[in-house]
């Protein structure tokens, strides 16, 4: 227990434990929750220590009366009643604290920026709605949000239940087939916040991460504008050859690249894949090498996922990877 307690203290004290932690909050809901978590854990730790002291004393106390007297029984009864009363008061307090925190993390006002997230086995499909003049666009496994504003996530599922969870920004919410759930996402400072599917969803539940990139509103607008645009024709000859190979091979049957003939809808939209931080739902950073490794053998890196191993020559593989990387 002592080792374990020391571990807990170090974990809580250091706080900053990577970018996917309920103890490292950077968004209003997660900050409210962290306060609640620390408060409840502190109170419960005190209760545990008190009970253990009582246990230790009860077991090890010195001379005991030869027989139980009526007086000591009455005293014990009083103590037990008092302890139960204290329990009632404490849990009532915790219930009320929990209720107020629940109110603070409610669903945002309807004029907030709305992003639709659609869970798929085993990646995240993200829709940014368009307005009158600006078209909407689609991306995958990555959400960009402006800091300091409430963002409304609409959560849907294309197949089984998934759960959206970016602990540094907010608690989790399930994506349930046949339903549409809502949650509030808000980041207070710029950064990349990792999240991961939290509801068991099949073979590759372990490799279903999502990145939330929070940036200054101006940066966000710039990003959104570039995402709205179609893919450009690559200047690099390798990449241009890769474009041709991509369209000739089965790739285009499942993936869309806006601005080309590729319009498949089964897999993620790749129009701007080169601008994303990771590929294959957080499996690896987006580099030409990791793209090549993934395209060459997706079933070894992520067994059971729905991307088939497409037979390619090494030249084709290199060219397609170059093309993917060029899709900024």
């Amino acid at each position, binding site marked *: *227990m002592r*080792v*374990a307690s020391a*571990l*807990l203290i170090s*974990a809580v004290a250091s706080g900053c434990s990577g970018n996917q932690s*309920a*103890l490292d909050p950077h968004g209003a809901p997660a900050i409210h*929750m962290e306060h*609640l*978590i620390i408060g409840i*854990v502190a109170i*419960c730790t005190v*209760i545990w220590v008190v*009970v253990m002291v009582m*246990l230790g*004393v*009860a*077991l090890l106390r010195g001379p*005991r009366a030869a027989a139980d007297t009526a007086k*000591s*029984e009455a005293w*014990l*009864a009083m103590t*037990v009643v008092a*302890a*139960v009363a204290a*329990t009632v008061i404490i*849990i009532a307090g*915790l*219930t009320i604290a929990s*209720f107020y925190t*629940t109110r603070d*993390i*409610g669903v945002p006002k309807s004029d907030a920026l709305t992003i639709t997230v659609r869970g798929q*086995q085993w990646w995240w499909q993200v829709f940014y709605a368009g307005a009158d003049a600006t078209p909407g666009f689609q991306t995958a496994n990555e959400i960009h949000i402006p800091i300091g504003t409430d963002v409304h996530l609409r959560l849907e599922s294309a*197949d*089984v*239940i998934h*759960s959206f969870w970016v602990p540094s920004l907010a*608690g*989790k*919410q*399930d994506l349930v*087939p*046949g*339903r549409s759930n809502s949650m509030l996402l808000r980041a207070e400072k710029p950064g990349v916040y990792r999240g991961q599917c*939290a*509801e*068991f969803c*099949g*073979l*590759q*539940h*372990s*490799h279903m*991460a999502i990145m939330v990139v929070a940036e200054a509103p101006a940066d966000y607008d710039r990003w959104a504008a570039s995402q709205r645009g179609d893919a450009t024709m690559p200047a690099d000859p390798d990449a241009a050859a890769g474009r041709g190979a991509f369209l000739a091979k089965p790739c285009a049957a499942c993936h869309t690249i806006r601005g080309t003939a590729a319009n498949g809808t089964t897999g993620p939209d790749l129009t701007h894949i080169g601008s994303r931080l990771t590929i294959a739902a*957080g499996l690896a950073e987006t580099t030409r090498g990791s793209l090549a490794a993934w395209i060459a053998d997706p079933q070894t890196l992520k*067994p*059971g996922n729905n991307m088939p191993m497409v037979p390619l020559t090494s030249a084709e593989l290199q060219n397609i990877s170059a093309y993917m990387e060029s899709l900024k």
Partner: protein
Amino acid sequence: MTGRDSTDSRDTGFNDGELDHRLASVWSTPPGLWGALSSVDHKIIGRRYISTAFVFLALGGLLALLMRLQLAQPEARFIGPDRYNQIFTVHGTNMMFLFAVPVMQAMAVYLVPLMVGTRNIAFPRLNAFSYWMYLAGGLLLWIAFVLDTGPDIGWFAYVPLSGPQYAAGKRADIWAQMITFTEVSALAVAVEIVVTVFKQRAPGMSLDRIPLFVWSMLVTSFLVILAMPAIMIASTSLILDRLVETHLFNPAEGGDVLLWQHLFWFFGHPEVYIIFLPAVGMVSTIVATFTRRPVFGYLAMVMALIATGVLAFGLWVHHMFVAGLPRLGESFFTASSMAIAVPAGLQIFCWLATMWAGKPIFKTPFLFVIGFMVTFVVGGLTGVMVASVPFDTQVHDTYFVVAHFHYVLVGGAVFPLLGAIYYWFPKLTGRMMSETVGRWVFGLIFAGFNLTFFPMHILGLRGMPRRVYTYQPEMPWSALNLFISLSASILALGFLLFFIDVIRSARSGAAASSNPWGASTLEWATSSPPPPYNFARLPVIGSLEALSDQSTALPVATGLRVDRRELLVSSVVEAIPEARESSAGDSIWPLWAALATTATLIWSIFTPWAVVWGSIPVAIALIGWFWPKGVPEDES
């Protein structure tokens, strides 16, 4: 009460030796395989049940070690996702349905008739049937697992992942039908316990003189009867959806995927108390014996048991806080989930008061109770944490919850169970377990358990989700996971030592006297192990502490027939004798009935026609079961 009522067939006319001889010839199970297969003695079936449950515990533990091996380092390739998903599903399913619930009921099958002073459990043939069904269900799951068709959908089997579209093959059907097996057997035992406790108590054992373990099993049995139908409806609906295309869970045709979660957790939460309440009874029994005084606040303890049982049905939504239900409704379940801390706390305080006022004797069973107090309070407090909606949305489906429920189920139920095995082992086998080894077992299991599971709280808060077969090296979880995996080996070593001690002690432990601990409940009034008829003369109870108030022999009730299996039926409240009732003799038919039912149930995951054609052998077996055999027990 008819029949040959001549005095020479009653027990009044014999001296002790003659009576023992006569009763043994009526109640004994014949030797040999056939005798073993047809026995309806609650002690033989109880021992069999307990041994089988511990075999499943060991197998489930091996799966846990495999999981820890895979998770010891990031992106390990030791087990692939397909196998890993089967492993954690079978681990959870096995521990909940094949170990925890059956082992608690099995302890009751063995102990309750002894503790209430009767000669056999009510409906003894149903008891035999329930064991065979349980064994068949367990084999179904495990054989499917080794055949690589084990369920891979989690022990909770959420639709649509377990539904017809996303769970290919028969894996999910095997899970769902395994539920049917274990629920049939659990319901059967629950009914037997309720009837035994209500109608077969020894004369004078009024409701306020029932031992706390018996009370806890009575409440548990009611929970089983009320909770298990929900899961049977759920699992049967799942099979229907998968096999004959009903649309109960299909949103496109008006079904609802959350319906599954409501049905599952309406059973699943009481399930926790079905496992925990018997453990509470064991703790009360052990505390009373090893502090040399009755448990403080008997009435409060009984009320706490009943309150827990009632509240258990009002908490299920706290498993669904992130499913998207209305927040206000969820707050109600926060309140009710927190409220269950009150009866739980009350019991803890009563045990503390008992220890305070008593004179503790630190034998192995009591050590396990102390270990229970330390760990269960942690589990209870983390339970209060996850009852809070905002707290839960951060830790739900993370390793924090894994830590929480292992603290509740291992700390809260397995520790008392191991204590209970050390405590009742002399009554089960007639031999004592080793006190020295027992201390090592306790130390290793206690240390190993806390070192394994406490760090999981931290992993959960630091973002590690459950049910992942691996994690990526850049996540800050590797060190703690390695530490946990290494600690798990200490825990495993403790259990290994426990199993070695059990086997060794059962063969060559020191012989036990009838009451080696100086306990006060009725099972210690007979020899260790008890004779087939439990008590030569049925005891009469004058107080809650049946044995400690009697410096001399217990008063006994006489007048039962010795030429057939006969026991005493008494009134529900005051336990006033009402009638002599025959108790069914040995029969092979429960086994045939269980085999016929097994064939029907397994067949029915392949074709719905199995229900029609399978009912024929089931009907034949049941007719054989109830056909009068012309034995004395058939007389009314």
